[in-house]
């Protein structure tokens, strides 16, 4: 469960980081973003990564939590990489799905 949450949430955070890179912006948005938006995206990406790492460590202890987090974001990054390659225009859709998924799972996790 925790792994799925980490995976879904970090699809969002890594998408933010990818979207902040100028080389991907034309593919994603058809135009370059201004520096302020870039900064915001970078900040949001790193913040989400840090928060999820912190939560994972809090829940499962430093060694297990960090191991799970590192392994999980590998596969978040894989998704972002595949989206950037094959479905760059669907980035927002994918992120919406990821957000919904992480919301649902997080809700389920907190409730039960």
């Amino acid at each position, binding site marked *: *469960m*925790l*792994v799925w949450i980490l995976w879904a949430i970090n699809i969002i955070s*890594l998408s933010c*980081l*990818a979207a902040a*890179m100028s*080389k*991907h912006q034309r593919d994603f948005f058809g135009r370059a973003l201004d520096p302020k938006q870039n900064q915001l995206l970078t900040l949001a990406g790193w913040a989400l990564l840090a928060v999820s790492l912190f939560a994972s460590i809090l829940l*499962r*202890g*430093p*060694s*297990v939590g960090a*191991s*799970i987090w*590192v*392994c*999980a974001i*590998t*596969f978040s*990054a*894989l998704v*972002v*990489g*595949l989206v*950037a*390659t*094959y479905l760059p225009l669907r980035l927002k859709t994918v992120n919406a799905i990821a957000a919904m998924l992480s919301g649902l799972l997080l809700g389920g996790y907190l409730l039960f």
Partner: protein
Amino acid sequence: MRIDGKSEGPRQSMSWLHTWVGLPLGWLLFAVFLTGTLSFFHQEITVWMKPELHQSLATQPQAQQLQTAIDALQTRAPDATAWNINLPSNRQTATEISIRKPGDDPRDRRGGERLTLDSATGEALTARDTRGGGFLYRFHFDLYGIDRVIARWIVGFATLFMFVAIISGIITHKKIFKDFFTFRPNKGQRSWLDAHNATAVLALPFHLVITFSGLLLLMFMLMPWGIDAAYEGGRQDFFQAMNGRPVQQGQQQNQQRGAEQQREGMQQRNREGANDEARAANREAGERREQQAQRNGERQAGGERQANNGNREGRGGNGEGREQQPTAPAAPLGDLVAMLATAEQQWPNKTITSISVTNPNRENAEVEIRAQESDSLLSRGQQPSMKFNGVTGAVIATPEAAAVSIPSAIYNLTTLLHMARGADVALRWLLFLSGLLGTMMVASGLILWCVKRAPEQQAQGYKSFGYRLVERLNVATIAGLPIAIAVYFCANRFVPVGIPLRPEMEIKFFFIAWLISAIHATVRPHRSAWIEQMAIGAGLFFIVPIVNALTGGRALWSSIYHQQWTVASVDLACILMGTLLAWSVYKLQTKPAAVVKARKTVEKPVEKSLIQAEGQA
């Protein structure tokens, strides 16, 4: 390392090093990576390969399973010196029990009666004789058919090359973060390079940990000099010191620790992998026995299995054994189900896997319950465990684990992750999938070597010997090994049960299939060899679940319906493998190689299958 001796930048020389350190042992590394990745699930594979065990459906509550096991033990061996019960979990379908009788030689690790029970009925199940996943597990560091020590040196050497290749690859790549999400499909060599980079970079922490810990797991053989310099008694003394005990110990303490050791022995013997490891360690230890026997005062160092083993062997010379322990008066065994309930309450999110009882039906009975998932991977002794008085059921307080120093925390974390010990299902799957990425990294690296040199070969008008050799070895390894594994799975069902040397026969099929694939790769044109072997591999992997259903195993629909994931996941993984191979065949065929740059486009479609595989992962 330019041939003309002109100066070049560090990244150029690292690129050269990366190529030439990666290639010569690349095929071995591919085999080690693939079999090692499967070894994360070697226990599941073993269960799959014993279809007789598929009938045991573990749908009952654990309390009931435990009661069934105790009933069986009470009827079979009420006077045993120790019992061990391994309950069904996500890693096994049936209940395993083992019994240690008073007369057993306590130093014989293979001793003690082992039984597998149907978890519902308590009926004993007899499974066919097979090495199962243990073969793949052993192969990934002991290879096969050559001396264990030599094999480990070879694998250790390959691991060092891998480590050098990773570091030099990082230096070469440089733009790791800039290219993090970059992949350019359908661009020939560029795509291969991207695929190689992506599989390497995405799972880089995994690759570093698995390679470094691979060296650490062999460190007593590869790098004993520091330990030998500091400790006269070698690794036994070292482990004692690691556990904070003085090196010189009196003999009388041996006796006290007898019971504990015995329980540990039971525990270890009951885990398939540990069992294999123990056997290996035994052999290894045998060589040192004489030296060790001379040294008095050697004791259990705890924590490290190999050291334990060596000690146990070594103590043979002291003439001291557990069998001399006096027998305590009889007393009824306490309520194990209640103890299980206490443990379940303590660990709401953990899987309880094993329960061991020392001196059952005696006054000094003791029960230890263990769970699968560790809370911390920083020290070895932290597998969750609770001890109970076996008569009253009172909890015996276990001492807090001592603080771990930084180097041993590094050692423990990396090696425990390498072996997925104490990992829950999710982490085990993540490690498995990361292992697949690593396998693809090695494969794409090997293929890239050819793709890069294709234009040069084209220009020269013929393929040079070295180039052809690499091409053929690539087919024979990257396509041949999966075929051999699928054949091994099928042979498991077609080699008749009960013939002598049955496990060896299964393994023979594995190697014969691999050999045929190598011959095929040599005689067929390169492109045809790829297509045909991929097609055969795909076919075999699709057949495996069908064979399973037809030869006494639980069919996939049934195993899913009954949530017998141990069996279902192996079938599903085979279908996934088959799909990937079939897809790469389709890609190879639809993209004709008859473009001008013929040789270059040959492997292009395969790479897409690798990317696709990542997607599946």
